[in-house]
């Protein structure tokens, strides 16, 4: 599958960049003319992954979050969100609905469930002490 366009963003893991990242990816996706509902899905999924990098990957320390997006010739948008933070000890457990390691901060544990519901594919790679990459795909038009 050919990549017809690609972008990469790097930013400091401060909460103000959650909005920046989701709007930037949504603006990138707009070139394939997706519906507003599809754009809202993408924004929400990006917001979840970037928030996780900020609060779980690095928090309370700071680090760099990388967001990449690629448009494929078959009409699929690929997104990856990476941090070089603490990593996830048990990915299957982390992805369970309502599982959170920060209940005292009123986190809902629904971030991965939102990503999985709003995107067509979600996969997670993580190494303890090295960081986490979340890859997501969404079809924007028939290829």
């Amino acid at each position, binding site marked *: 599958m050919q990549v017809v366009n690609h972008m990469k963003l790097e930013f400091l893991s401060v909460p*103000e960049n959650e909005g920046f990242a*989701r709007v930037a990816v949504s603006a990138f996706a707009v070139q394939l003319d997706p519906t507003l509902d599809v754009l809202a899905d993408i924004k929400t999924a990006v917001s979840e992954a970037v*928030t996780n990098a900020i609060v779980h990957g690095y928090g309370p320390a700071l680090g760099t979050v990388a967001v990449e997006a690629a448009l494929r010739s078959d009409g699929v948008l690929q997104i990856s969100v990476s941090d070089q933070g603490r990593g996830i000890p048990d990915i299957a457990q982390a992805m369970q609905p309502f599982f959170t390691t920060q209940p005292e901060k009123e986190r809902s544990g*629904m971030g991965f469930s939102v990503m999985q*519901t709003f995107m067509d594919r979600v996969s997670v790679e993580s190494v303890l002490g090295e960081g986490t990459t979340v890859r997501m795909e969404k079809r924007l038009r028939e290829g």
Partner: protein
Amino acid sequence: MEHVRRRDTMTVRLTGELDHCSAQSVRRELDGLIADPGIKKLVLDMGGMSFMDSSGIGVILGRYRELHGRGGALYVKNMNSQVEKIFLLSGMDQIIQII
């Protein structure tokens, strides 16, 4: 935050985006508005909200617990389709009434 109190009911109009970044200030403002224990019902009017992610679920459920703990209830209204999708996905419609 635009709000109106009628007897034991506080209605609050949420606007803008509710994510992790804004969650703390939204939480603080809502808690201020329901601080009087005489308030038993909180109605969240989401009509002016343009975005919410799962951090918003945490904020809403936290306020639900507070109201529920004092024998009250929480209601939401005017959700857009994106917000409603998050709401249904998390099963919040099981405990929070959409009016």
